[in-house]
């Protein structure tokens, strides 16, 4: 155990800081120190993708990063998707197309889909499948998620 260090970062557009042990995982820092429990921990070894966040604009697994690595970073979590009290088109589409059941993978899935659509605004079905294969969903069989991402892509292109 080492003395706590200060971590300063920008989360969902807000400057945040906290003190934690250097070994603390970023996901634990987000959940415990910043109270942002929307980002979930499913495996702690970088496979399930439930903990996916946008780290300086790119999808990253917050369960295999340390909080100190995020010092100075810009982070987006599921809590930051809603803008001005309105659901993000991805959130709307997941609801419309029954893209979630238990909800546990949903935050990571939304962020991963956002990352996909930022880099590829018009993905084919195969590209969506490959893109979201970074996150495990045990409930839906991915059917509703695929439909939702396709629909959100359309909405976001038209916006």
């Amino acid at each position, binding site marked *: 155990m080492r003395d706590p260090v200060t971590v300063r970062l920008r989360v969902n557009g807000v400057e945040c800081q906290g003190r934690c*042990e250097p070994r603390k995982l970023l996901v634990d820092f987000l959940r415990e120190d910043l109270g942002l429990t929307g980002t979930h921990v499913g495996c702690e070894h970088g496979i399930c993708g439930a903990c996916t966040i946008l780290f300086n604009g790119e999808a990253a697994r917050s369960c295999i990063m340390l909080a100190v690595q995020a010092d100075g970073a810009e982070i987006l979590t599921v809590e930051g998707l809603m803008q001005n009290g309105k659901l993000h088109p991805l*959130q709307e589409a997941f609801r419309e197309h029954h893209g979630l*059941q238990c909800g546990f993978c949903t935050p990571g899935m939304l962020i991963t889909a956002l990352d996909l659509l930022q880099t590829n605004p018009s993905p084919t079905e195969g590209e969506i499948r490959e893109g979201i294969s970074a996150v495990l969903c045990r409930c839906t069989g991915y059917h509703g998620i695929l439909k939702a991402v396709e629909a959100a892509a359309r909405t976001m292109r038209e916006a």
Partner: protein
Amino acid sequence: MSLIGAPVRRVEDARFLTGRGRYVADMTLSRMLHVAFLRSPYAHARIVSIDTRRARELPGVAACVTGDELAPCARPIRAESKMAGYRATEFPALARGKVRFAGEAVAAVLAESRYAAEDALEAIDVRYETLPVIATPEAAMAGDATLVHEAAGSNVLLSRAFVQGDAEAAIARAPVVVGGRFRFHRHAGVTLENRACLADWDAGARELTLWSSTQVPGLLRETLAELLDLPAHRLRVVAPDVGGGFGVKSALYPEEVAVCALARLAGRPAKWVGDRREDLLTSTQAWDETIEAELAVHADGTISALRARVVADVGAYSIHPWTASIEVIQVISFLPGPYRVPHYRGEGWGVATNKAPMGPYRGVGRPVSTFVTEALMDRAARRLGIDPVELRLRNLLRPDELPYRSPSGVVWDSGSFVESLERARDVAEYERVRAEQRRGRDAGRYVGIGVACYVELTGVGSAIPASPGAAINTGTEGATIRVDPGGTVTASFGLACHGQGHETTLAQVVAEELGAQLENVRVIHGDTAAGPAGTGTYASRSAVIGGGAAMLAARALREKALAIAAHLLEVAAGDLTLADGRASVRGAPDRTLTLREIARAAYAGAKRLPKGMEPGLEATRFYDPYFGTASNATHVAVVEVDPETCAVVVRRFVVVEDCGRIINPLIVEGQAIGGTAQGIGAALLEEIVYGDDGQLLTGSLLDYLVPTAAEVPAIEVVHLERPSPTTLGGFKGVGEGGTIGAPAAVANAIADALAPLGVEISELPVTPERLFRLISPGGRPLR
């Protein structure tokens, strides 16, 4: 339009989509301690000594507790059953005397953070004396085998047989007998949320609250009251948002007992959040059966007899409430499937080994029984030169034969077995695929089509135990519905939800039956302090039994609301309708009262009510379907096998299912597709592997493969919707079915693809390695 049957978007989604779900891991109580468990590195060993002195002195550590220290505060879980010949075992919260599987909890640390608690685990000194590891049922049944449980007197914890007619004689005289030795390997449920629990002991009130990621809060409360020696009314169990269950969270776990006892000992809230390794090591696992089976058919393809011997590796402990019998009994109960089987003999044994306990997982036993029976049907078809669909059509029970008592005593109340197969054959364009298959074979391509038919008992009533002899009544649930004084509706259930969308579907049932507006109905579940007594959600029961209870309570309230409205409007109740939150006089649409106005009167006291009527607008009703109802489906898989890489690609998947009257088609489709995806994973990818030393070799999601979006094909679902004649509302269960049919359909499709090579699929999952060994016994690739 009726709300029952409408594709209503889920009310629970808003919180999940915005990161506002509240799972156990998200909860923090003031002064809360974090629990970490020290887990056995050995599969079978005597505990010689445990020294926790160093651990206790580490910074941030509040307590370090061994099994012997915890024992005075928590009795062991004893999985009882009235089943003849069953040997009960005890599962302590923390191991005492010896450990029986790698990963069993030996000691617990309570600390200010999980990090500090895990540090302290490394400072606990345990001396073990290893014992011979029982790694297989064969080893367990050997004459001189070491006993996993000395007190049980045998490693065979249970045996049972279902017999109808004389299968031996029928097989001896049948013109065609096909058989095989089948193996469905061990499987893990892998809920995305690992198991977690948080206990808070209020020493002043002498009350304990447990929040747990469980499917069965009601069951936990009743059992924990006994184990913790606390009256049940001083115990509240809450299942908040739960990240998937699939049966894995439907038993009482030792961690739940331990965390309750630890919170009481420490006088501070105690939270344990399992990590993935703990989940793969200790959550109940499924299947792991070896089945020797023979199917005898007449020359015309009709079944004469089925005989099976099933040995199940039940792991180290029998679990409460399902016991070690849950899997194997279901296999021998459901092997005859939806077919006419005049002679049947199914025998099963549950054998203890040094592995994680066996428990229920989506489909329970029936993915295994369906795999075996459907493989045998295809083998018989090939032997007789009859098309496999045609062979099934000759044997499926027809509607005019129902209700039908199966050879194991299960009653199929109704079903659309023939219709579902014919429809699936047509939707999947069976003949076109056959033609493509023939063309492909000429070009060296291996395309196959596999069919699986099944029937399952859902909404199991009290007459038929979901697990024979087990200490649980699975047949009853209640609903308490209150029209609040302001006219909104609060409906509480003993059920618990872990993805099924009950807050939406049960609200649809309540709103429709009561005549309330959907947006004014709120469903509460998963809290023993809020709902009527019940057990929880498992075994495809909630729509049938919870939905039935909701209908009964809503109808009682509707009747009372109409009586009040009739009194206030001075008309006969029979002249009123109640819909969409408004009571109206037939033929006089301007004479109306809102539900809000009726509720206000109901709570205003006797002066505004009909003479003698009790004030209030609240009802509790319980429902028991008594027998339960049959859901059925046909699955058709089209696969292509790459003979060089041995990869199997599922090109098409069709499900034609009948879950009776549909409450919400979006949710039914989600259940059918999600279950099928799990079944495809079970067929091709997912396998728990133990070494001969009892060590788990698949302890991460790199080793245990859950299907991703890249492996799950598009799954087409057709709903037949033939209402159950025996359940209130006509509902049938739908939660498990997908997982029942898919492994068999995929296995049959692979065998069909490789039929020119004489390959039969008798072992699941069909990994590339297994397929390689099957198609190239000499170890050389095919071309």
